[in-house]
């Protein structure tokens, strides 16, 4: 049976993981309030410029999200 990880490791992952997301949310909020191109537009421009990289990253990110969130017996 697997054992829970050390407390410091859990705190590190929770704080770093959510803080990065919050930083991106704050950026998107500021860009939207100022009527400038939002984060999604920059991602779109990058993905249209490098479609192979975008596809590879999509597969990795999609796999990770499915792995973390989709609990099966």
């Amino acid at each position, binding site marked *: *049976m*697997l*054992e*829970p*990880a050390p*407390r410091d490791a*859990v*705190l590190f*992952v*929770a*704080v*770093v*993981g*959510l*803080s*990065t*997301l*919050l*930083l*991106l*949310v*704050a*950026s*998107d*909020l500021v*860009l*939207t*309030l100022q*009527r*400038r*191109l*939002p*984060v*999604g*537009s*920059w*991602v*779109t421009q*990058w*993905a*249209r410029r490098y479609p192979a990289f975008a596809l590879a*990253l*999509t597969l*990795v*990110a999609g796999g*990770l*999200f499915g*792995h*973390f*969130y*989709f*609990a*099966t*017996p």
Partner: protein
Amino acid sequence: MAEFESSADSGTPTPSSRREGVARWVSIGLLSAAGLILVWAMISAVSYTVAHTSPPCSNPPRLDSDPPQLAVVSLGLMAFALGHLTARWQAVDPKHVRRRTRASSIPPENDRRRRDALVIQALLLAFLLEMLGLLIIEIVTLSRGVWPITFYVRCAYDAAGWQSTLAAAAVLFLVGRWFWLPRRRWHARTGS
């Protein structure tokens, strides 16, 4: 986008400009809500972890909780689609979508658009490096017999089902907003 689409003679906003104004404020409201939910989730996780020595669920975490998994997945999919729609309907100031030309008179150090792009690309790079870090942590923990991140997500769902569902929906709203690419004709929609 009233100031970009007012009729030239009367200054009255058109129905289209009002719709885009509503879309923009809906974006701002939902982004704020997603941010607040993530802050709430982070504070809850950190405060529990600091105050207790064991996780708030069984080992291994149960797979059934309230709300049921089908409801969680449905809410997540709706949030994902909503994120895409808010980004798609959101209009931007036309002056920020000018294409750069070779003869541009703005020096690179004074070009605000270029600075914006650098900041956003740096943030995205950090986000992608973090995904890589999470993947490595998942591999290392599993190989050493320690709970992987997956188990902590399941534990959160087991111990606080609705709060975890809201946090998952907030994350998926952001993913839909940032990573679901619009069709070409919708990209960089301006108020003009």
